[in-house]
C-alpha cells in the first residue's frame, strides 16, 4: 500500500513537469497551429534564468588571501560577492540562497519577451507554411538557442540548489500512519508539484474567466469568424505565445534544483512532451494536463522492481507503448478534437 502511494506521489511529481511543458505546447498548437520544436529549448532557457540570476547575485570581486595557496602555489584569490559586501554577510548570503525562487521574477518578463519576439519575428511567417517547414525552422532555432547557452555556460550541468529552507525531505508516511521511512519525499519536489498546480489553474482561470481568455478560446475554435467580428485575434495570439513561453520557462526555472540544468535538457524533454500532447489530444488543454499526470504515474509504476522483473525493460518503453495503445484505441488522443493537425 505504502509502495503504491509512493509511486503515485512520484508520478504526480514527474507528471507535473510533463503537464507544464505540454500545456505550453498545446497553447501554441491550439491557438496558432504551429508545431514548435523550440519549446524544449524555452524550458531550458527558463532553467538557465536561474543560473543567470545565481551568477549575477554571486558576482564577486577578488581578495587575495596570502595565508592560503591555490593549486599552483600562488596566493589564493578568494571570491567575495558584492551582494554580501553591500548588504552584509548574512542578508547577502540568504539572497543568493533564494536565487531560484527569485529567478521566477526574472523568468516571467524574459520569457514573455522571448516568446513575443519569436512569434513576431519568426513564427508569424510560418502560419501558412507546411508543418514540416515549421518543424525545420523551430528545430533550427532550438539548436541555435542551445548553442548560445553552451557557448556561455559550457556543456556541463550547473547546480542551482533550492533555498536551504526547502532542503531535505519530509516523512509523509509517518503522517499517514505508516512506519518510518515508508514515504519520504523531498520538500522541493512537493513545492514543484504545488507550483505546477497553481500555474495550471492560473492558465485555465485566465482562459475561462477573463474576456481576453474568452476571445482566445473563441479564436481557437474558429479563427476566421472571430477575426470577422472585428477582433484583432492575431495580437491576442501573439500574447498567448508569450504566455506559453513563460509557462515553459517557469517549468524550467523551478525544475533547476531537481535536475542540474545543462544546455541540452530541453531536447531530453522534447520528444516526451510531444508524446504527452498527442496522447492528451492535439489542441486540448485539459487533455495535455491529464496526459502529463497519467504518463508520469505510469512511468513511475513501470519503474518499480516488480514491473521490471515481470517485463524486463518495460521502464524504457512504457511511455511509447502507452502512446501507441492510446492512439490506436482513441484516434485523437484522450480528449482531442476532430480535424486538429490531421492534414
Amino acid at each position, binding site marked *: 500500500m*505504502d*509502495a503504491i502511494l*509512493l*509511486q503515485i*506521489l*512520484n*508520478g504526480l*511529481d*514527474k507528471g507535473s*513537469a510533463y503537464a507544464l511543458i505540454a500545456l505550453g505546447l498545446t497553447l501554441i498548437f491550439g491557438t496558432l497551429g504551429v508545431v514548435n520544436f523550440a519549446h524544449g529549448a524555452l524550458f531550458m532557457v527558463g532553467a538557465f534564468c536561474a543560473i543567470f540570476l545565481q551568477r549575477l547575485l554571486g558576482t564577486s570581486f577578488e581578495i587575495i588571501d596570502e595565508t*592560503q595557496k*591555490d*593549486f*599552483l602555489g600562488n596566493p*589564493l584569490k578568494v*571570491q567575495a560577492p558584492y551582494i554580501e559586501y553591500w548588504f552584509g554577510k548574512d542578508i547577502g548570503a540568504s539572497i543568493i540562497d533564494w536565487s531560484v525562487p527569485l529567478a521566477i521574477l526574472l523568468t516571467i518578463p524574459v520569457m514573455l519577451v522571448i516568446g513575443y519576439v519569436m512569434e513576431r519575428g519568426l513564427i508569424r511567417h510560418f502560419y501558412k507554411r507546411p508543418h514540416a517547414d515549421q518543424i525545420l525552422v523551430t528545430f533550427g532555432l532550438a539548436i541555435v538557442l542551445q548553442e548560445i547557452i*553552451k557557448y556561455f555556460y*559550457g*556543456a*556541463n*550541468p*550547473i*547546480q542551482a*540548489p*533550492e533555498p536551504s529552507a526547502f*532542503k*531535505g*525531505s519530509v516523512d509523509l508516511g509517518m503522517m499517514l500512519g505508516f512506519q518510518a*521511512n*515508508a514515504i*519520504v*519525499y*523531498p520538500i*522541493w*519536489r512537493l513545492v514543484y508539484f504545488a507550483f505546477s498546480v497553481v500555474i495550471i489553474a492560473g492558465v485555465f482561470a485566465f482562459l475561462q474567466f477573463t474576456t481576453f481568455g474568452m476571445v482566445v478560446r473563441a479564436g481557437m475554435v474558429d479563427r476566421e469568424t472571430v477575426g470577422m467580428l472585428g477582433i484583432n485575434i492575431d495580437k491576442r495570439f501573439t500574447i498567448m505565445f508569450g504566455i506559453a513561453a513563460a509557462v515553459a520557462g517557469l517549468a524550467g526555472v523551478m525544475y533547476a*534544483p*531537481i*535536475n*542540474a540544468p*545543462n544546455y*541540452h*535538457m530541453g531536447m*531530453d524533454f522534447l520528444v516526451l512532451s510531444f508524446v504527452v500532447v498527442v496522447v492528451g489530444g492535439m489542441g486540448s488543454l485539459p487533455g495535455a494536463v491529464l496526459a502529463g499526470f497519467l504518463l508520469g504515474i505510469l*512511468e*513511475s509504476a513501470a*519503474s*518499480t*522492481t516488480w514491473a*521490471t522483473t515481470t517485463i524486463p*525493460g518495460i*521502464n*524504457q518503453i512504457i511511455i511509447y507503448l502507452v502512446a501507441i495503445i492510446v492512439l490506436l484505441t482513441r484516434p485523437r488522443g484522450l480528449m482531442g478534437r476532430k480535424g486538429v493537425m490531421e492534414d
Partner: protein
Amino acid sequence: MSKNDLTRRGVLKTGAVAGAGLAVPTIFTAGSARAFTNEPTGSNVVLGFNVPQTGPYADEGMDELRAQELAVQHLNGEGDGGCLATFSSKALDGTGILGKKVTFVTGDTQTKSDAARAAAKSMIEKDGAIMINGGSSSGVAVAVQGLCQEAGIIFMAGLTHSNDTTGKDRKKNGFRHFFNAYMSAAALAPVLEKAYGTDRRAYHLTADYTWGWTQQESIAASTEAMGWETVENVLTPLAATDFSSYIAPVLNSGADVLVLNHYGGNMVNSLTQAVQFGLRDKQVNGKNFEIVVPLYSELMAAGAGANVAGVYGSMNYNWQLDNEGSKAFVKSFGEKYGRPPSNSAQTCYAQVLLYADAVARAGSFDPCAVAEALEGFQFDGLGNGPTLYRAEDHQCFKDVLVMKGKEAPANEFDLLEIVDVTPVAQVEYPADHPMFGGAEATLGECNPGA
C-alpha cells in the same frame, strides 16, 4: 568450418596482393610504397585527437583537447617541457618525434560510436593521422579501437572505464591508460570497509547498458567479498533524467548504502536527487545512510556541486597527487589554462607522450614496432607514479586513487580530496579473468595496415 585467427590474418595480406591486378588495392589509404598506414614521409607527423566536442560530454572533451595541445607543444620543444623532464624514459628531447615536427588534427566523437568512427576515419583517410587518441566513453573507445585495428594505426583510449575495452574487446593496436571498473571496485572495497564496516546492505542503481553492468558486477563482487549484502540492483534507462521513482523506494528497502553505478549526466542527476531525498540525513539499521559513486570525474563533481560532500568514489588521477611528474604537469597545464587538469586530461596528455616515446624508442612509426615498445613498458614521472603497460591485454597498471567529496571546498576546483592511494598490487588481476573475457579474449595480431 573452424579456422583460427592467425591464418585468417595471414591470408588477408595474400588476398590483398591477389587483388592487386585490379587497382593496387591497399587498405584504407593508398600510397603503394608505404610500409604501413599513413607512414609519415615529410617533415611533419600528424596525430589525431578524437574527443567529444558536442553533446553532453563536450566539456570533458575540451579538457582532453587542452591537454593534448599541451603535449604537442612539449613534444615540439615549446612551453616549459612539462613532464618531459620528469619522465623516466629519456628518448624524447623536445625536437618532435624522430625529428619530425608534431602536428595534430581534431575530430568530434559526439559520444556516439558511429560519429566517432566517422571522425576517426576522416582523420586517418583525409589527414593521414598516424595514431588516434582520446574519447570519453567506453562505447566510443571500443568502436574506435576496432577501427584503428582494421586501419592499422595505434589507438590510445581516453576516458573509458568499462572492463571490455581491455577485456573481451582488447586489440593489439589499442592501449588504455585509464583504469577500469574492476580496479575501481578493488580499490574502493577496503576503504569502504574501513569507513562503513563489514555489515552493510547495499542498494545498486545501475545505468542499463554495458558499462553500467560491468561496473555493478565488479562492485557487487568486491563488496560482497568483504561481507556486504546486495539488497537490490535496479537498472535505470540511460535517457532518464529524473530518478525519483528509483530513489524513492530505497529508504524502505532495508538497505543502508546506495551505490550509484552512473556516469556523467546520469550521475549528476541521480546523486543530486538522492541527496534531495534526504538519504544522507537518514539512519537505517542503526547506521548512517551512505552513498557511493564508484567512478568520479572532476566535471561530474563540479556538476553535482555540494552534493558530493562526503561521498566516496575512485579516480584514475587527481591534480592533488604529490609526485614530481604530477607537479610538473599541473604547473604546466595550470599556467597555460588557469585551471588544474582533469583526470581524463592527464590520461590524454600521458598517452601522447607515451606514444611519442614508444616511437622514439622503437625508432619507427610502424604501429607494430610501437606496440611492441609499449608492451610491458614500465615507467614513472607522468603523474601516476610507477606504471606498467601490461603486454597481455594492453591495460595500464598503476596506483588507484580513492576520493571523497570535500565537506567545505575552498573553490570550484577543490571539490574532492584524496583519501587513499591504493597500491597497484591490490588492483591487479590475471589477464584471463572471467570479467575480462576469460581465456577466450585475445589481442589478435598487430596490423600495420598497408
